[in-house]
């Protein structure tokens, strides 16, 4: 990572670069990560209103009840929103500045849950909310149990 050493001529300043590694437990949400490795998108379902949510949660955020049922959300969904990053941003995995060609989108899955993803179509003018999309997965051996195991969402004809 970069360690800029720009000094103000008048005032003394210094920098202190630090890298800190945390080990986060996914807990109940582990099943979601395990599902991705098998090419499946799983969500928890609320027993009160039947709503499926990603991130999955052990307790429904609205009704405060345990969510024991997991539902396969299918491989298709509809576009909710999209944006494209037109400037270099820090990649939180590497700490380096990076640029991205593909838009980031929010998808409402067939099972009703919503999640973020990359869009295969790079021309934002061709994106319309409500358009149908299908998951394109990384090869099984490359999957890490993370949302970007879905390489892209590909627009498909209805």
């Amino acid at each position, binding site marked *: *990572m970069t360690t*800029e050493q720009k000094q*103000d001529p*008048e*005032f003394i*300043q210094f*920098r*202190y670069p630090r890298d800190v590694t*945390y080990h*986060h437990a*996914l807990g109940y*949400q582990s099943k979601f990560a395990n599902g991705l490795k098998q090419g499946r998108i799983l969500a928890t379902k609320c027993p009160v209103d039947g709503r499926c*949510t*990603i*991130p999955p*949660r052990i307790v429904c*955020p609205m009704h405060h009840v345990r969510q024991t049922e997991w539902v396969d959300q299918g491989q298709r969904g509809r576009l*909710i*929103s*999209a*944006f*494209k*990053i*037109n*400037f270099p*941003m*820090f*990649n*939180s*995995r590497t*700490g380096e500045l*990076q640029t*991205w060609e593909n838009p*980031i989108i*929010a998808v409402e899955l067939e099972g009703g849950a*919503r*999640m*973020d*993803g*990359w869009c295969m179509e790079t021309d*934002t003018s061709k994106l319309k*909310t409500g358009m149908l999309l299908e998951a394109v997965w990384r090869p099984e051996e490359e999957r890490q149990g*993370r*949302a*970007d195991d879905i390489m892209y969402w590909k627009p498909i004809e209805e």
Partner: protein
Amino acid sequence: MAERIAIVGVGQTHHKSKRPDVTTAEMCAEAVERCLEDAQMSMKDIDNIIMGSFEVADGYYSPDKWIIPELGAVGKSGLEMQNVGTTGGVVAATGFNIAATGLFDAVLCLAWQKMDEAAGAFGRGGGGTNEYWTGQFPMSPITNFARRAYAYMDRSGCTEEHFAMVRVKQDQCAMKNEYAQLKLGLTLEQVMNDALLAWPIRRLHMCPTTAGAAACIVCPEEKAKKVTNKPVWVEDWFTCHQGGSLTMAEDPTSSTLAYASHLVYKRNGITNPPKDIQAWEVYEPASPAELRWIEEVGLCEDYTAWKLFEQNKVGIDKEIPFNPSGGVTATNPIGATPVVRLVEAVLQVRGDAGEHQIPGTINRALATGYGGQGENVIMLLRKTL
């Protein structure tokens, strides 16, 4: 039974992009000196201090260890807290709660941020509030508001030109505020041709990085009346959480602002917000968000606020006096930003806002704090009890 409470003094620094001349603690002391002077009080009169910043963008752990001695406030009761962009809002709301107990005479609420020191902490600090869920894609306030803006255009039928109209209005207000950071004299063309950060968000649409601090002093009724002849009463306040990813929301343009503000209206008998409230300082981290916020606080129908800008109805001396300070796109010391809103609302109620004073009597003002992906803090002020 809770005490009625009032704000008896406010203070803020002149907000700037860089403050190499002061440490974080010294910058805080500057705002507190001005606040005490405004209240005509000394540090001896303060018996509780609630303070906070967005710690991830600070680079200090336990900043109170540095700031409390710099304030000459060692040994006083208090709390240090943080909640991203709403930090100043929860600082103020907690100060209100504590003052309302009547256990303390004068509660100092202090919030700050020195973003010239933060060095991309947003992108680097795990990419979001929870790396596994929000850090897998390059997310930031910019991208968060880009997707809101895209969905808003899609639903409302407004164009990028309307976003530019909002930005120009914000700048016109900031030009009149001596404490504001960005005073640019913008034209519509400049905004529309500005560099794209994440379509449809341009650089000028987005709040800047700011070094600044803001403070207020809150007293229970009896003390407030002794201290000042122009107390500003805190009628009500409410803090509202929103969980998880934005994609959980039914409407990607919305936040908890509609829910939280209408809850406060209901319990204070406010039935016609545009008439019952005369000054608005609503935390808008990006110009396009101001359109949706105007709708969410009940100033017009959903997805129509852009028409108000087309009709030139929003401004300090216009039908809708929204963000007379110039707002967050002009000044954003992030953790302090909600207190900057509160300070402006207090000045408006007192009639002390100078060049950016809204004409006429301000009986009620509404200030908010926004943070994360939709948390809101509502602060409702009144001129008289």
